């Protein structure tokens, strides 16, 4: 890796050579842990100076080895992540943190630990509701996670270290939100593709390095003059996108991505962890209540309208402040939690007068090409 590269160029390089950066960090003697989805509290890893690496799939790699352990009817993202795991993509992990986010993530975490062994291995159970006792339970599970980490690290997590990690990650969240601010102008100063690369980059770095990178990027982007042309402004809701080929396809079809409510988007970054007296209290509250993946059952309002409003009101605000023209509801095939939610979200957004295009896709770069016409047509639809 080129050490002199900074900001966007650096993010781009890290994105392009997945894993290379983490492997280098490891060479420098740091421990690297992999984690599934945006629920494991990585603050605990940072507190032990362990570098958290978000486990992603590879839309560009045909799934072969996973076929023997995970059936084709399973979430294709999970299958892909496991597949490249089996192919050695993540063989440098010192630890693996699985999570009961959704069925797919949970089962994959379990089966992952059967095949891909790493020195430290923890499966974090996550309750389905936001009831008070659920938060308490989740906090207990996080405490077990903490204990296991300390055992494997041979040192305990000092409260002040944890507090520092939390504030560092909160700082990271703030920086990411600043980047989102820079996408409010029309045309946005930052493309969806650039954003994706930056977020994936920092999801494979130590929080300190990540924050440094973000600061550099913000510096560069602020001073930009309209780098791209005006296009229809698109919000993405739903399953994650972890490959720039996808965002490039969208943004070359007459659309600018301005905000994405996904697991590689606003969800992990939108809310800060409240720094409570017992730090883990704030951590538990944050991950269970403020990471807005439909996997969590939020019971709110006494009828459909109220319920939708309190569950999706934030989408209305996104649409308002980012001047969204249309919404792409992205569903990776076999993703149940988004599948059940999609028609409800579509109702809600359509009532707000926002056109919605819902696409179930196969999480494979080769099957993307056929989507181009749909995005162009959607751009024409909201343009007319």
């Amino acid at each position: 890796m080129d050490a002199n590269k900074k900001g966007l160029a650096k993010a781009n390089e890290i994105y392009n050579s997945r894993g290379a950066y983490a492997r280098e960090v490891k060479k420098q003697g740091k421990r690297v842990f992999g984690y599934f989805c945006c629920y494991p509290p990585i603050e605990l890893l940072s507190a032990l100076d362990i570098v958290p690496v978000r486990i992603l799939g590879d839309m560009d790699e045909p799934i072969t080895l996973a076929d023997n352990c995970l059936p084709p009817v399973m979430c294709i993202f999970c299958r892909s992540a496991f597949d490249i795991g089996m192919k050695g993509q993540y063989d440098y992990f010192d630890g693996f943190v699985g999570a009961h986010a959704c069925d797919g993530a949970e089962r994959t975490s379990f089966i992952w630990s059967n095949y891909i062994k790493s020195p430290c291995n923890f499966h974090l159970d996550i309750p389905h509701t936001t009831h008070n006792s659920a938060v308490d339970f989740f906090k207990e599970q996080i405490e077990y996670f903490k204990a296991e980490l300390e055992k494997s690290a041979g040192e305990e997590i000092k409260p002040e270290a944890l507090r520092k990690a939390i504030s560092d990650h909160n700082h990271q969240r703030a920086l990411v939100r600043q980047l989102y601010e820079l996408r409010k102008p029309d045309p946005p100063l930052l493309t969806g593709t650039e954003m994706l690369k930056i977020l994936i980059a920092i999801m494979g770095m130590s929080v300190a390095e990540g924050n440094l990178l973000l600061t550099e990027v913000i510096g560069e982007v602020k001073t930009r003059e309209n780098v791209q042309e005006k296009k229809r402004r698109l919000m993405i809701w739903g399953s994650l996108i972890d490959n720039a080929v996808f965002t490039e396809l969208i943004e070359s079809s007459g659309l600018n991505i301005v905000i994405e409510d996904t697991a590689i988007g606003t969800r992990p970054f939108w809310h800060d962890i409240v720094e409570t007296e017992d730090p883990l209290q704030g951590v538990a509250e944050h991950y269970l209540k403020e990471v807005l993946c439909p996997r969590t059952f939020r019971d709110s309002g006494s009828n459909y309208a109220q319920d939708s409003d309190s569950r999706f009101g934030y989408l209305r605000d996104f649409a308002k402040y980012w001047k969204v023209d249309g919404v792409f509801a992205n569903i990776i095939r076999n993703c149940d939690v988004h599948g059940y939610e999609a028609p409800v979200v579509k109702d809600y957004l359509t009532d707000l007068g926002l056109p919605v295009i819902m696409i179930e896709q196969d999480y494979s770069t080769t099957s993307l090409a056929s989507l181009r016409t749909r995005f162009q047509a959607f751009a024409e639809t909201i343009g007319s």
Partner: protein
Amino acid sequence: MFVAGIDIGSTITKIVIKNETEILSTVITRTGAEHRRMALQVMTDALANCDLSFESLECIVATGYGRINVPFADQQVTEITCHMRGVHWLFPTVRTIIDVGGQDSKGIKVKDGRQVDFIMNDKCAAGTGRFFEVIGDVLGVKLEEIGPISLRSEKPADISSLCTIFAEQEALLRLSEGTSVEDILAGLLKANAARIHAMVSKIRIEKDVAMTGGGAKNIGLVKALEQKIGFPMVLPPEPLITGALGAALIAGETARSLRTEELRAKKEKRRLEAVTFFDKDSVR
């Protein structure tokens, strides 16, 4: 003022040349591998039909699968918008369009001449013209005969697989069991109609419903779909050209919206060359 719309589909290429009020010339030809470069020829023929010079065309809009690399087009628009515009020009009362093309089938929702929603299926060949070409080959039935023959069936065969390759296999099995060709075809049409209907239902089917594309020329499919929908559909006199027609209409608007010198500038850039058909991006 003369304008043209060219629709390069995956299987068939269509051109419409029109003036403000009427269609002057249309040409329809197979796209097939070696034909693709003939889009140029097709344009030339279309011009000859209404003896116009290439220069006399104020604006040209390309649409369809191969729209991206038509060097002599001033503008590209997706087939979805174009079909909608074409059908709306022909039948202003239409609210839902079902287009069954060579390689995909779509549903388009129209409201006050604007497209409000659409859905598209192109993952598998079921419910597309290609399906029937393949089946036709196996059963030794010409594409255009499939519909009429199927109408003779009393007892449509039960077809379990919609995957073209295996439906083909199943058709063979049924044949060797002694099931009649019309029953097999009727069964296949029924199954495909169900598939198409299920897809289009997602955007809520509202009256009037128009059917376009090669599928609309298959009377068996039309009847099977109408049975599913529960009321008759309207069919354009030539269901294949609605896309090209829509493209021509858009070309007309563009031409009217531009000042003469802007148009001249466009024309100068325009090259009457062969279509270098393929969309490079999709090769990635």
